[in-house]
């Protein structure tokens, strides 16, 4: 591991040293280091043509975490990774993922991944994923994450995804199938700048009675960047779903937000809210009256919004 690698690990997973508990660090398309625990086993996929890992978490595992960061510092590297999570019943675990690219060359560095979660009965999962890009090179930094989640009865998952600056192009696809009395909360935070492009396509299917889903998306588009959101919430049972998309638009950016709610059951309660707007002038003025400069005020407003 070099200094740049640790810097990326700090950005995406707040790691300053080898993590506690189970972990799998992937660096430049290959395994860097791995550790399994008594309850969490990480194994390399054996299917031909599929690079990635399977993570098995024993039923009843509580208070443990798994770190699975990916870092790329090699310009021109492009990879597709498949990670499957099998989370046993009654677990309560944190999964910290994320991808950081430092591209100092002129070729594109790209990480695409498909994470599939099978969450057992009454299990509770918190999944945190940060995407970060940097590097002085002209090569693009591209990330296209796909996430599929299947929640068993009474299971719950909090998906927190963050991409603040540095990623030139991203297409995020998320699909969650929510079983009876299960719950999903998706929090998405995104900041694009320059001529970056980001697209987020989300499908939440509330499939069982008592299922609930919440999508909270907050984004900031600066300069001439472009964002497209397409969150869909489908209710197939007596369920509750809420989609909230808020965006701040700046400079010459473009944002398209197309939330959709689909009810296939008479007791499905679905709500969506979407708003796009610039920073309100009186917000800036208020913070200036507290002694901040206009630039500092803008920064605080954006920080708070994406907090």
């Amino acid at each position: 591991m070099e200094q740049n690698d640790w810097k990326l690990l700090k950005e995406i997973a707040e790691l300053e040293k080898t993590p506690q508990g189970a972990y799998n660090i992937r660096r430049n398309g290959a395994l860097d280091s791995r550790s399994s625990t008594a309850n969490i086993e990480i194994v390399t996929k054996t299917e031909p043509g599929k690079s990635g890992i399977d993570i098995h978490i024993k039923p009843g595992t509580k208070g443990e975490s798994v770190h699975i960061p990916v870092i790329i510092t090699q310009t021109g590297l492009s990879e597709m990774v498949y990670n499957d999570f099998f989370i046993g019943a009654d677990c309560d675990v944190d999964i910290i993922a994320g991808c950081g690219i430092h591209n100092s060359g002129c070729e594109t560095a790209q990480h695409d991944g498909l994470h599939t979660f099978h969450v057992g009965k009454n299990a509770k999962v918190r999944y945190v994923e940060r995407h970060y890009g940097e590097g002085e090179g002209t090569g693009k930094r591209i990330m296209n994450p796909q996430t599929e989640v299947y929640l068993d009865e009474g299971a719950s998952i909090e998906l927190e995804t963050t991409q603040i600056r540095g990623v030139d192009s991203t297409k995020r696809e998320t699909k969650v199938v929510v079983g009876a009395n299960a719950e999903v909360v998706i929090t998405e935070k995104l900041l694009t700048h320059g001529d970056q492009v980001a697209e987020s396509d989300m499908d939440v299917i509330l499939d069982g009675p008592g299922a609930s889903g919440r999508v909270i998306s907050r984004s900031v588009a600066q300069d001439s960047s472009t964002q497209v959101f397409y969150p869909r919430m489908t209710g197939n049972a007596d369920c509750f779903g809420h989609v909230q998309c808020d965006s701040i638009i700046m400079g010459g950016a473009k944002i398209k937000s197309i939330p959709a709610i689909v009810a296939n059951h008479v007791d499905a309660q679905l709500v969506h809210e979407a708003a796009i707007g610039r920073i309100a002038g009186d917000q800036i003025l208020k913070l200036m009256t507290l002694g901040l400069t206009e630039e500092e005020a803008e920064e605080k407003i954006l920080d708070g919004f994406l907090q």
Partner: protein
Amino acid sequence: MLEIKGLSYQVEGEVDILRDIDLTIADHQLVVVTGPNGGGKTTLAKAIMGLVPPTSGSICWNGTDITHMDITNRARLGVSYGFQQPPRFKGLRVKDLLALAAGSGSLSHEEGCQYLTRVGLCANDYIDREVDASLSGGEVKRIEIATILARRAGLMIFDEPEAGIDLWSFARLTETFRAIHAKREATLLIISHQERIIDLADEIVMVQGGRVVKHGPKDEILPQIMANTVSGCSYMREEAK
């Protein structure tokens, strides 16, 4: 000391909003600015804070001419202003706003709670809440006042602090104004129509039609205002009989 000389503000095609205002306020005075709606009170307050650029005249604060100074620098010199209709911030929490106001990266939990208590808010219920649309008008207003308290500025301007605030919290607020004044911590300029706030004043300034029409000690000005209010309105005259 706040010294305003010949301050005017005109908007093309509209009546003059401020007309040649002269006003001097000594240190640590509690001055209530009152007068009919649309008379120019808020514009005067905003001009002092730098939110409105005057067309002519000057504003000096503690001997420094701040007439052409930007909002940020006025704030750093100790001028503060509580908005009549404060903005809301999605994502910024009450404690974040109070910390920004206090000028420190982080505000201790106790300090934050103290400011909220002084405006009649139960600190534990509010300190972690976002200053967004989930708060009522009265709640946002009180948080706004708490940010001014947290600034500990030399000049505190409050624009109708009573608006939207329930009776019980209002009583707490007047006590807070009284306490700041008693400690001679700051010069207070309060735009208000409330008798209980007017009652705290050392001086009253009456602004009407963009001009200062009366300015003097409370005991002198208040009876004049009350007399004019009753005699100027035929309905109230009948009621008074």
